[in-house]
């Protein structure tokens, strides 16, 4: 059975599992194989029972890497770094970080935008497939990082929808005084922003926001979807017209306003003081949604809130609906 352990060790090393994890896994297997032998199983039976080291190693690696993504983060450490692959991007500009604080203003049309903290000391701006980089303003002035698509005359017959992508890396653990993002159709993926004011506005671009810590936050889209994972702050306002909104692991110390016309809203593990939800035909589905007070208003959308913790009381200030159902379990 030593062969099984040796093979397993080799496979785990190949998959770059950490030394500590490998040791633990091997110790567990030594113990389990010993128990199997004490049970009277022979080599062949054990082989059958334990399966192939290669598949086992793969399964273990899958699970470990997924876990690391999940557990590496906590709210006191918003700047948790994601390994960023900049290989497919071209470096456009680098700005040294001299001050403790700065603001970010982004104004794009159709280009996608990514922002994430990293282990470096300067602000780095990258691009991929951006045509005519000369038509953009990219500068750092008066403690403000500005990336903007300049207004150009739109040729009537050009359907040039050649949109590219920007990637901005900011030093981790740095406070951003203001984060202002506007786009028309570009998608945004923003990770790890800690900022007083966060304003995000998109027409049809989708927004993906992860690890966000802000005092006052306002997110608006028309048809773009919003996906939020891990967010905390004092005041939070989200408004969508037809885009869907999904929020997971959100803690708001103050009030939260959610407005939707026809977009569906899905909440999971969301806490706040006073919650105000308004919709016309969108549904609201809240699981583990704990506002201390809540106002619900819907025309035809259904509202369902399901909570497991029955000890936490939710005070319902008002609920109004025309043809939708409101269920609070």
């Amino acid at each position, binding site marked *: 059975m030593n062969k099984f352990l040796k093979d397993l060790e080799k496979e785990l090393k190949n998959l770059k599992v950490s030394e500590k994890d490998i040791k633990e896994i091997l110790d*567990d297997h030594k113990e*389990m194989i*010993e128990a199997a032998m004490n*049970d009277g199983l022979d080599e062949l039976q054990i082989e059958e029972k334990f*399966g192939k080291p290669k598949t*086992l190693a793969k399964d273990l690696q899958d*699970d470990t890497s997924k*876990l690391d993504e999940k557990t590496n983060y906590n709210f006191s450490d918003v700047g948790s770094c994601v390994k960023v692959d900049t290989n497919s991007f071209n470096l456009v500009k680098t700005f040294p970080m001299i001050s403790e604080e700065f603001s970010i203003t982004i104004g794009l049309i159709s280009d996608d935008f990514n922002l994430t903290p990293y282990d470096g000391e300067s602000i780095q701006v990258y691009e991929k497939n951006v045509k005519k980089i000369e038509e953009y303003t990219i500068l750092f002035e008066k403690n403000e990082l500005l990336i903007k698509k300049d207004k150009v005359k739109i040729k009537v017959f050009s359907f040039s929808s050649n949109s590219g992508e920007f990637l901005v890396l900011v030093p981790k653990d740095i406070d951003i005084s203001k984060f202002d993002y506007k786009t028309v159709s570009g998608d945004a993926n923003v990770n790890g922003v800690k900022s007083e004011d966060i304003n995000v506005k998109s027409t049809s671009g989708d927004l993906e926001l992860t690890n966000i810590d802000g005092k006052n936050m306002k997110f608006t889209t028309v048809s773009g979807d919003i996906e939020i994972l891990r967010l905390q702050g004092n005041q939070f306002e989200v408004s969508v017209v037809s885009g869907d909104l999904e929020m997971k692991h959100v803690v708001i110390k103050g009030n939260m306003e959610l407005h939707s016309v026809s977009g569906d809203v899905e909440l999971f593990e969301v806490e706040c003081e006073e919650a105000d939800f308004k919709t016309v035909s969108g549904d609201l589905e809240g699981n583990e949604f704990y506002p201390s007070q809540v106002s619900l208003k819907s025309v035809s959308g259904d509202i369902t809130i399901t909570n497991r913790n029955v000890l936490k009381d939710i005070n319902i200030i008002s609920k109004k609906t025309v043809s939708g159902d409101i269920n609070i379990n």
Partner: protein
Amino acid sequence: MNAQFKRGIVELCVLSELVMEDMYGYRIINNISKDIDVNENTIYPILRRLTKEGHFTTYLVESDLGAPRKYYKVTEKGFNYYLELRDSWDNFIGGVYEILNRGGKKNEQISERFRKRVKKSKSE
């Protein structure tokens, strides 16, 4: 069977075993593989992941037959998770049987119905 699907079911089984009593790894594997066709390489990663996620804790117990054994114990969080999973499983499997039973409960009944139907469509 689809690997992802199987993993979910095995996860439920592992939880169920440990909700009954604390056990060491091999015992869990043995208990489960008695009834369903799985081997260690499905169960161990689940044990490890659920432990990391705080659904289980572990402790060592000396053994007469060699090295001490690692016992797995369900935490409060793990127990709640089990209830949740169990609920969705019951709902799901209940729904599946609703659908299957519409076509008959026993194989003979199902075959009979099916043959009749085939015959009928042939004669038409």
